[in-house]
């Protein structure tokens, strides 16, 4: 079976800074894969490199068996869509939800826009009442739902999720995580998800990779993490930190 995403010894360099130093990764179709690490570990850079948003210096990225060049083709974006961390920054402030959702459809020449927009909004639990609102008239959770609808409207097979809930309140986070799980199940999507929160990754993903300063530290299954079968001190520290504060 060909992997949905195969990354081979990927290097990303910003000016002289090596953000990724030869990272390899395989994600099977229908799998949900997590990337964890602290800020600066390169987890978001890896995601952005796959989406074509970071300067790849070496190595290769293969999506659904097709090797990617430096320029992404239009067809690539029908397969791969991304949801960003900050719902306040990732929606156009002067476009209505309707206009936002029309954009990808216009780019890819879909004719049945009307129907698709309605369906996409229903799918993320927003309904038609939200269609002609601007993003400042929505709450953080509603905006993230719009961002998810925008990603789903082209019916991609792969979603790249960059900390999709870290800007949201805990109760809203639960709703958005449930929504993501539901659409993944219904559409048999492949997820590649970045988070700094180990609990979210074990909840959402089957396998994960721990990263530190541009390199992979270790690959684990979610069960390994639950049973604390980790081999590296770095991962152990992360696990301990996620238990909360312990008075010395």
């Amino acid at each position: 079976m060909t992997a949905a995403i195969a990354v081979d010894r990927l290097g990303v360099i910003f000016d002289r800074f090596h953000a990724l130093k030869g990272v390899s990764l395989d994600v099977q179709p229908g799998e949900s894969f997590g990337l964890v690490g602290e800020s600066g570990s390169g987890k978001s850079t890896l995601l952005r490199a796959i989406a074509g948003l970071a300067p790849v210096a070496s190595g290769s990225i293969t999506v659904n068996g097709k090797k990617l060049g430096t320029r992404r083709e239009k067809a690539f974006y029908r397969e791969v869509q991304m949801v960003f961390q900050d719902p306040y920054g990732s929606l156009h402030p002067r476009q209505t939800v309707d206009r936002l959702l029309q954009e990808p459809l216009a780019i890819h020449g879909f004719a049945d826009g009307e129907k698709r927009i309605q369906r996409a909004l229903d799918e993320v639990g927003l309904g038609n009442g939200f269609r002609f609102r601007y993003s400042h008239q929505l709450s953080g959770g509603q905006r993230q739902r719009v961002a998810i609808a925008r990603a789903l409207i082209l019916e991609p097979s792969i979603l790249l999720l960059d900390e999709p809930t870290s800007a949201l309140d805990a109760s809203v986070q639960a709703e958005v995580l449930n929504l993501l799980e539901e659409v993944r199940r219904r559409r048999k999507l492949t997820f590649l998800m970045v988070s700094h929160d180990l609990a979210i990754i074990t909840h959402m993903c089957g396998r994960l990779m721990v990263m530190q300063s541009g390199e992979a530290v270790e690959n684990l299954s979610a069960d390994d993490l639950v049973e604390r079968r980790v081999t590296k001190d770095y991962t152990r520290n992360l696990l301990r930190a996620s238990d909360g504060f312990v008075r010395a």
Partner: protein
Amino acid sequence: MSTLLDVEDLRVTFPTRTGLVEAVRGVTFSLGRERLGIVGESGSGKSQTGRAIMGLTPPQARISANKLAFDGIDLLSVSPRERRALRGKRIAMILQDPKYSLDPVMSIGRQIVETLRTHEKVGKAEARDRALAMLEAVQIRDPARVFDLHPHEVSGGMGQRAMIAMMLIAGPEMMIADEPTSALDVTVQLDVLGILDRLVSERGMGLIFISHDLRLVSSFCDRVIVMYAGKVVEQLKASELGRAQHPYTRGLLNCMPKIGADRHPLPVLDRKPEWAA
């Protein structure tokens, strides 16, 4: 236990185009020399409560309270001048993100010295020595180097330590920490909390720790106040969080994913209008 701060029926009201909005609606609590956590989601009024105590509420807002007293001083009737003398000297505040709350064009050392010399009559050399000692107390390894750095040259964790140093140098009796660690990585978060914990207990300060993270607060504080829609819905000991009564507190605890708990889908909060009543 001596009471440091007494808050009774605190209300903060903002005028808007559509009428008055009450951000804080009748909050009552008292603080001794202990760690008190205030937890709530965005819009619950937790930060506005902290700001009202500190005297940082925007000028257009109205504050009212039956009692808002720090160590017997009525904070509502105190003159701006006296208020300034309190602020920084006896009451200090740590903010969320050192990137935005430190002066970007002033070296870290100068900012700490400025705080000290505003509140105490000390010579330049002594001020510098005390600033360096304070930087060391917040576990900055090379204080002399960091003293001369500007905020953009240090990491988030280091910046937050510098801010703690700046707030502690005048020896305050009460500290308000508004989401002091939410901008930091989890491992750095624990280091900063450890420093805060040690300094607070060594100096016998009262600490108000404002956060959205119920689990973190319960592992750090002695007592927790849970706020919802501008009101206190529950007050309890941190150790008894597992026995919380209010459905909001329980829902908030429940809806977070936990390592090892296999719950699909996650339970979500079913907000009841009577919680806000």
